[in-house]
């Protein structure tokens, strides 16, 4: 909306010819087939609007993933007798969740009204669904972390209601672990159920990218914070998550067609490349770090950074795809020109008809 953003073409209807993919450094080969895109727009102005969200939201996507994966690790650690892993994961989950809450409230246009989120429960709104997932998950994750704190207190302070901690401990941790996977995956729905071209086109694969990223990040967090002899599961979760993230991301780009371009350009491109390198290196390091706490911690840090880069990269790519009318016009125009406009049909299959 700032005048500087305006790409005005005086005296024309804004017909623009642009290279389908601006020169990219080190991009994969599968998108080089994108032909030169010719399309018409109104003075090159955006059609859909980018979200008004700022860094709060990708930061939340990352922290929410850390919290979710950590709650899963904590539940597993609890059941398999790994108290140090359990403790660090539970505290990590609460820390990440608290950060998430602050970020989510801060991002609102009217933060003082954040409780209005609880007025309704709406299945058609992934944000409402997510609010209720967090509202369910949060207290259990909080209670599980609280019991860890109580456990760290000297005996003489563990009196009165604090003695209840022993009974709350395991059920809270397990319930947090049960709801955690939804915390990790709903955020993909949140992004892809929009008209933002690069998010919407990623809708089938993005949940897998995000749970992979959550697993890698939370595994990485455990490698940084838990003692070596208890981090075996965290290492396996981290490596599995990293592989899932990298594979699903590749699948996602294939499915996205031209809207994958913003993932390779500008700030988003830098972030996505960094994400791949950090995630792959972190996973490789985690794989061989069975005897070295230092190497484990370093790998864990790389995995955390990789996950953050993925979230910021996907976020930025979407924002960019909304700012450029090309990504809205060209895919829609192509399906119209193919004679396949999106039309409702009684038996559910799209009706084919001319424009």
């Amino acid at each position, binding site marked *: *909306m700032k005048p500087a953003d*305006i790409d*005005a073409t005086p005296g*024309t*209807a804004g017909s623009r010819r642009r290279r389908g993919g601006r020169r990219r450094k080190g991009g994969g080969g599968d998108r080089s087939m994108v032909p030169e895109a010719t399309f*018409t*727009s*109104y003075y090159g*102005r*955006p*059609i*859909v*609007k980018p*979200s*008004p969200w700022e860094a709060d939201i990708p930061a939340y996507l990352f922290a929410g993933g850390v919290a*979710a994966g950590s709650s*899963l690790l904590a*539940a*597993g650690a609890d059941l*398999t007798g790994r108290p140090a892993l359990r403790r660090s994961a539970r505290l990590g989950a609460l820390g990440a969740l608290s950060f998430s809450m602050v970020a989510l409230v801060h*991002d*609102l*246009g*009217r933060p003082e*009204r954040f409780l*209005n989120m609880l*007025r*309704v429960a709406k299945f*058609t*709104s992934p*944000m409402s669904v997510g609010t209720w997932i967090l509202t369910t998950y949060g207290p259990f994750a909080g209670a599980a972390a609280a019991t860890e704190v109580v456990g760290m207190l000297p005996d003489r302070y563990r009196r009165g209601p604090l003695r209840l901690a022993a009974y709350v401990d395991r059920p809270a941790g397990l319930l947090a672990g049960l709801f955690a996977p*939804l915390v*990790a*995956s709903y955020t*993909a*729905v*949140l992004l*892809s*159920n929009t*008209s933002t071209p690069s998010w*919407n086109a990623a809708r*089938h694969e993005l949940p*897998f990218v995000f*749970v992979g990223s959550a697993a890698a990040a939370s595994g990485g967090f455990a490698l940084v914070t838990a003692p070596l*002899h*208890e981090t075996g599961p965290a290492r*396996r979760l981290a490596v*599995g*998550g990293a592989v*899932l993230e990298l594979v699903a991301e590749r699948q996602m780009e294939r499915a996205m067609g031209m809207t994958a371009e913003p993932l390779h350009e500008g700030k988003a491109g830098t972030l996505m490349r960094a994400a791949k390198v950090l995630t792959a290196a972190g996973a490789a390091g985690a794989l061989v770090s*069975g005897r070295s706490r230092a190497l484990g911690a370093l790998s864990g840090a790389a995995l955390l950074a990789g996950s953050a880069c993925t979230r910021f990269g996907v976020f930025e790519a979407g924002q960019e795809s909304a700012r450029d*009318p090309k990504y809205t*016009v060209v895919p829609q*125009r192509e*399906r*119209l020109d193919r004679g396949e*406009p*999106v039309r*409702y049909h009684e038996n559910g299959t799209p*009706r084919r008809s001319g424009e």
Partner: protein
Amino acid sequence: MTGRHSLFGPLDPATDAGYEDHPARKGFFTDTSICIGCKACEVACKEWNDVPADHFEMLGSSYDNSFSLNANQWRHVAFIEQPRGLGDQEPGLRQPPAPPPVELGMPEMGAPGVMLPDSGTDDVETPDFRWLMSSDVCKHCTHAACLDVCPTGSLFRSEFGTVVVQEDICNGCGYCVPACPYGVIERRKGPTGAKNVGIAQKCTLCYDRLGAGETPACAKACPTQSIQFGDVEELRERANQRVEKLHEAGIMDARLYGNDPNDGVGGTGAFFLLLDKPEVYGFPPDPVVTTRDLPAIYGRAVAAAATLLAGAAVSFLGRRR
């Protein structure tokens, strides 16, 4: 509240929203072929709805200096200058053919004084130029993405089938902004001191005026009836007749946009007659309400969540270290 077509397909939105006894669905038919670009609609809208004036820049895009529909611009007139004629339409530049002269017994024939250019012939060329003007507005979709995704219930379906923001409920989460396939709704950023900063804002189809049996401000102010207000059902019929008439007049570019209840948003309450492809005016060519795919996306998310749960479980199997 949710019927078979609730996420996609034709339906009556007010009935679907649960109103049992409600007035006919109201909307706009904006016939851009008779828009003169006077911007009376923009002004009337701002005045009636107290929409703050900001972003006045000389943009160098014909007569359009209001940029786009946004939080502070609920009607926006687009101006497009094209190097092509209008079709066989009479541009009104030719003189009418003069009647044959009649001998009145006067000393000389013809008009006294200056001679006009030989009127009645084709020597005035049809200009190779046309000016498209179109007043854009919120579409009040049958399946409104903004309303679907609103997590507070601030956006609601009115008894008139329109989509309205309750400004005292909205907490400015901003989700409706990227959800809208037309880029209409926006969170108000300013100017400082304006009301409802931080809150999602868009056309209400003058919900207050509708309640009092009045015509929305923009349609009321439109001097050419380019903006027509009424029952959507009737407007659709009127639009079909108008486009036929234009086709008969040789303007084959004329087309309707948003009138089809089977389209990606279930048809819009505010639809248009355009003289070129939708994207020329800044409309998406084939918009779709993303909620249509939501059940499938939720399915993928649950599958991904199950994958994570299983992966975590498997991580704890095997070696104890």
